[in-house]
């Protein structure tokens, strides 16, 4: 009976196993068919959801831990240091050790804090994070949900994370936290505009909001090349606004270590602090992932029109490698921002948004619309 099950699973695949690296939908479709043959559609859906949930939990933890490690190593190399080097070869288990430490730490109950909101805040941040990464296309067919309004959904959901930050700042009953949370609120409200507008520039070019179709539209060339300087400007603005959106330096107003000690998460300890910490890094990953999806072709290999041999070679690299490669490229740039620049002041932050980014962005959207109307893009 059991052997039958496994052979039936394998027989569900119509193509060689290594093909799944290039098109993941072969695997998902196969598993889906296999499950549907075994049980009712309801249970199929339940089991598939559980599998996806577990996979995302794992992915979340792995990406978070890896990014923390990467950030430490990157900043260490920028600063002529070695970075973590004690636990495991090249210190690769350092973040795991830190996680264990944070798990064992005491969760300090703040005396005059609003207990319910105080405990709720980290979960809101984490849940919002999960909702966002579920919509990301990691590779061809490696996609949990492919909304037809994918970008719209991501924008809408990702800005909900600020509720967690505001709650954390408010409920901690700490003056530094409150200032940090208020700053963060002002920051996200204004930078959400820039992110949306710079992505709309690309949506105009792609003609769709569905992430898979946006990537498919970049088969003949990435949007950053196809959309002339207009796409380039949108990319730069997106990078700036995205860095601001994730509360990372030079826009880490909400934390502002040298001013507000730790800002909104001053009073958090142990695993609750780790949630905020992880969420910050996943946010960075999300921002970078969207940047690579919208501007750099997502999982689409680097193609040059007319160079058939070159394009074929590029096709041999699996799509998820392309996706993660591009994403970590963007993450590296964001890290470089953080470790090079001094922090802005809160009013300069808003000036930068309302006086520079927003007007340029609006004009840019018009230019892009004009380019698309005239058909001048590649």
């Amino acid at each position: 009976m059991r052997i039958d099950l496994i052979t039936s699973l394998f027989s569900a695949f119509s193509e060689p196993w290594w093909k799944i690296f290039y098109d993941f939908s072969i695997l998902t479709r196969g598993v889906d068919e296999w499950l549907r043959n075994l049980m009712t559609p309801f249970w199929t859906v339940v089991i598939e959801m559980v599998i996806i949930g577990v996979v995302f939990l794992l992915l979340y933890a792995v990406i978070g831990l890896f990014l923390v490690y990467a950030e430490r190593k990157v900043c260490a190399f920028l600063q002529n240091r070695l970075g973590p080097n004690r636990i495991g070869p090249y210190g690769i288990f350092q973040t795991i050790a830190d996680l264990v430490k944070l798990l064992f730490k005491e969760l300090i109950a703040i005396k005059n804090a609003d207990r319910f909101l105080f405990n709720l805040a980290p979960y809101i941040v984490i849940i919002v994070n999960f909702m966002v990464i579920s919509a990301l296309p990691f590779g061809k067919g490696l996609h949990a949900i492919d909304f037809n309004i994918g970008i719209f959904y991501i924008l809408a959901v990702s800005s909900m994370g600020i509720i967690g930050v505001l709650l954390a700042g408010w409920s901690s009953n700490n003056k530094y936290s409150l200032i940090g949370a208020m700053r963060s609120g002002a920051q996200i409200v204004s930078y959400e505009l820039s992110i949306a507008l710079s992505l709309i520039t690309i949506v105009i070019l792609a003609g769709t909001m569905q992430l898979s179709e946006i990537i498919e539209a970049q088969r003949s060339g990435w949007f950053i090349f196809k959309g002339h300087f207009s796409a380039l400007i949108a990319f730069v603005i997106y990078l700036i606004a995205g860095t601001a959106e994730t509360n990372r330096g030079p826009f880490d107003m909400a934390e502002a270590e040298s001013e507000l000690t730790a800002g909104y998460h001053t009073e958090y300890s142990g695993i609750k602090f780790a949630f905020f910490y992880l969420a910050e890094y996943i946010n960075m990953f999300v921002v970078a992932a969207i940047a690579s999806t919208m501007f750099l072709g997502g999982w689409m290999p680097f193609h040059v029109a007319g160079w058939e041999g070159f394009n074929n070679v590029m096709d041999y690299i699996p799509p998820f490698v392309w996706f993660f490669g591009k994403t970590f490229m963007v993450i590296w740039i964001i890290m470089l921002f953080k470790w090079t620049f001094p922090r802005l002041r809160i009013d300069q932050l808003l000036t930068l948004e309302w006086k520079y980014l927003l007007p340029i962005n609006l004009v840019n959207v018009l230019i892009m619309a004009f380019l698309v109307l005239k058909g001048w893009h590649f």
Partner: protein
Amino acid sequence: MSSIIQYFREIFQGIWSLLKGMRVTSGYFFSPGKIVTQKYPNNRKDLVMFERFKGEVIMPHNENNEHKCTGCGICEINCPNGTIEVISKTIVTEDGKKKRAIDKHIYRLGMCTFCALCVKTCPSNALAFSQEFEHAVFNRSLLIKISNKPGSQLMKGIE
């Protein structure tokens, strides 16, 4: 019009200045040879301190377990913090004379500020600085050290 030019010039100058900073930091990122960190406890074996390094005050002894301290107490007087305490005793030399010698030369490392006045003012150069710098101990009483080794004697020819 000029204000518009000014607006764009500001933007480009700003971006240029940011790129200059990023060039420096990314330059260091791609040159791993410039890393200055020392892996401290791992490089203990080949870690050489400078010869004048002020680790702690010691009393050098020669191979016959002899030191140069006459017990005059000048180091004790010169120490600003009361780090050094000289306890002397009277001994009878071979030719029957009574003579002062140290019983204990107590050095309280926890109080020492490494001003080097004791080493500098010692008339018989009995004290010196060692290169030892790993002073951390679990018990404060371990920081009270006795500089002269047990059974040691005054070196011949030093009064």
